[in-house]
């Protein structure tokens, strides 16, 4: 049983998806089964995480076919970390989802909705566990197809158009990835990531391999919404149903960043990516622009969901910035931020979900007076907002601190100053929301607006509390991120 955990990780969500679909109008039952599947996924992820915490690698032969001919699932400290993020977020978002989905999705579609959610979940997990390049492409498409359906179920009619935009850009991205994988296959005759890493050095000084690197890097950058390839993200996050925004913002881009790390560090190797192709010189300017411009755009948004979506693009910039330092410390900061940003942004979007539930929308004018009427929800928003800014004692601070150290270690003090400056921009856009919610009178004070229902409030508060817990007791997450970074910088998986 225990040795089959890697396969189980994907299988649970994948088998639960058609099961959930069959419940039809028994929406409570559909929700319960989906929730159980998510919790089981989290349990498996944690068990795998504990097993590889010492830096060891679990290799699983799918169907008993030995790699490199068969498909291999390989778990090490880096992808176990991402599995825990996916597991944790899906396990927390499901209790939150019940009431939110009841309000936002028509009853006849609820079972289908949960089914699509589980497929998206399974796809993301699959991308993370597999050690086969073509498998990564297939799982990317599984999660993407399910995400398009989920986003299109938003209440606003613009959701359909946003989903279509995402479909076009996402498909171009994954097709680029496929072209890159094709190039790698001609030159090496293998698709297994470890095997590719072993065979690439012989042929790496060819135009084909450099082209493969370009195609793969651009394809994944589209999926992870690296500025300026982020255009699909703000619309998709703004118009998707609340729980979909929570889940996608916390996991989808993170998994794509993991795939980038896997290709850059494990498959192509540090030497090829950073020394020979000087990737840092491309990534750093994009990261800096990608932090600054979306942060600035976020300041001028009037819809809070859209504001946070632009902030997500900026946060992806921080993760890419960490990678572009090309040092162990920078990589640690990036891996750390995968987790810290996931919990922070999920908590923020959950608070927004609560506001949407009671107020019907989250344009700034609708939020007026929310501080008095929904005190717990807004308190969660403020605390998670502080973590987003990077105030000490929150999770966001732990990553900012490591990014700062990495910048200073590389002698890049302008970047360090820049980091502090952009935190002010984050403070500005969070403050904009706080000001309206606490210091403005509600538009129509007569209508009674009460606090969000407990079923939604409790998951929100738990996740918000965790941003503080992982801020105060950051040692655990930092140690895990260091192991993950060491594994990535080290040998092949």
């Amino acid at each position, binding site marked *: 049983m225990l040795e089959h955990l890697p396969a189980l990780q994907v299988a649970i969500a994948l088998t639960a998806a058609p099961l959930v679909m069959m419940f039809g109008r028994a929406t409570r039952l559909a929700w319960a089964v989906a929730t159980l599947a998510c919790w089981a996924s989290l349990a498996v992820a944690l068990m795998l995480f504990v097993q590889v915490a010492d830096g060891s690698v679990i290799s699983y032969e799918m169907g008993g076919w030995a790699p490199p001919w068969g498909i291999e699932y390989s778990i090490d400290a880096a992808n176990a970390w991402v599995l825990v993020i996916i597991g944790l977020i899906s396990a927390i978002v499901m209790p939150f989802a019940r009431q939110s989905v009841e309000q936002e999705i028509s009853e006849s579609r609820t079972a289908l909705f949960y089914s699509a959610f589980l497929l998206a979940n399974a796809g993301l997990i699959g991308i993370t566990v597999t050690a086969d390049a*073509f498998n990564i*492409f*297939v799982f990317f*498409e599984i999660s993407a*197809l399910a995400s*398009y*359906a989920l986003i*299109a179920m938003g209440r606003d*009619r*613009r959701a*359909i*158009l*946003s*989903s*279509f*935009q995402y*479909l*076009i850009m996402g*498909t*171009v991205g994954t*097709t680029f990835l*496929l*072209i890159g994988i*094709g190039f790698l*296959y*001609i030159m090496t005759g293998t698709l297994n990531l470890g095997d590719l890493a072993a065979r690439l050095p012989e042929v790496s000084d060819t135009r084909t391999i450099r082209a493969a690197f370009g195609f793969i890097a651009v394809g994944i950058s589209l999926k992870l919404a690296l500025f300026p390839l982020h255009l699909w993200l*703000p*619309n998709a996050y703004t118009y998707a149903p609340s729980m979909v925004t929570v889940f996608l913002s916390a996991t989808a881009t993170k998994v794509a960043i993991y795939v980038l790390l896997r290709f850059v560090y494990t498959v192509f190797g540090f030497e090829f990516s950073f020394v020979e192709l000087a990737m840092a010189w491309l990534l750093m300017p994009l990261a800096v622009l990608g932090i600054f411009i979306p942060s600035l755009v976020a300041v001028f948004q009037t819809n809070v969901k859209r504001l946070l979506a632009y902030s997500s693009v900026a946060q992806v910039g921080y993760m890419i910035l960490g990678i572009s330092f090309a040092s162990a410390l920078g990589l640690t900061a990036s891996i750390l931020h995968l987790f810290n940003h996931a919990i922070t942004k999920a908590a923020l979007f959950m608070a927004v979900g609560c506001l949407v539930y009671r107020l019907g929308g989250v344009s700034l004018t609708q939020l007026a007076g929310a501080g008095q009427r929904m005190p717990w929800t807004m308190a969660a928003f403020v605390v998670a907002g502080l973590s987003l800014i990077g105030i000490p004692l929150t999770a966001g601070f732990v990553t900012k601190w490591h990014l700062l150290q990495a910048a200073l270690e590389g002698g890049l003090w302008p970047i360090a100053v820049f980091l502090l400056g952009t935190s002010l921009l984050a403070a500005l856009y969070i403050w904009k929301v706080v000001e309206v919610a606490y210091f403005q009178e509600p538009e129509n004070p007569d209508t009674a607006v009460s606090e969000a229902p407990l079923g939604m409030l409790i998951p929100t508060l738990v996740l918000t509390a965790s941003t503080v817990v992982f801020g105060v007791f950051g040692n655990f997450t930092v140690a895990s991120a260091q192991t993950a970074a060491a594994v990535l910088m080290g040998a092949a998986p």
Partner: protein
Amino acid sequence: MEWLGHYNYWVVVVLMMIGFYIVIAQGNLIKKLVGLNIFQTSVFVFFISLAYLEDGTAPIALEGVSEYSNPLPHVLILTAIVVGVALTAMGLALVVRVQETYGTIEEDEIHQQDDLH
């Protein structure tokens, strides 16, 4: 005339650019999907070309045959075709919904009704 020997790769490049251009330049959502399909098909042709071997046959052990085409890219592309079909179906379903809600599938006419940045 050596470059003619690789003419299928030239076809791949031309198809890819045609497809990509349609995706970017066309405002009609159906045409965008058509472009996306051409773009993907070019990648399929690319993979199939990789597997081709002059005088190679299907990979079945037969007497007097020593050269086989590589079956793996064929298998990969079968999967990719399925993915492509699913994507097209998803895209078309979305276009149907767009037509129902906006009454048009021309991008500029949609943007006149709804401001989508």
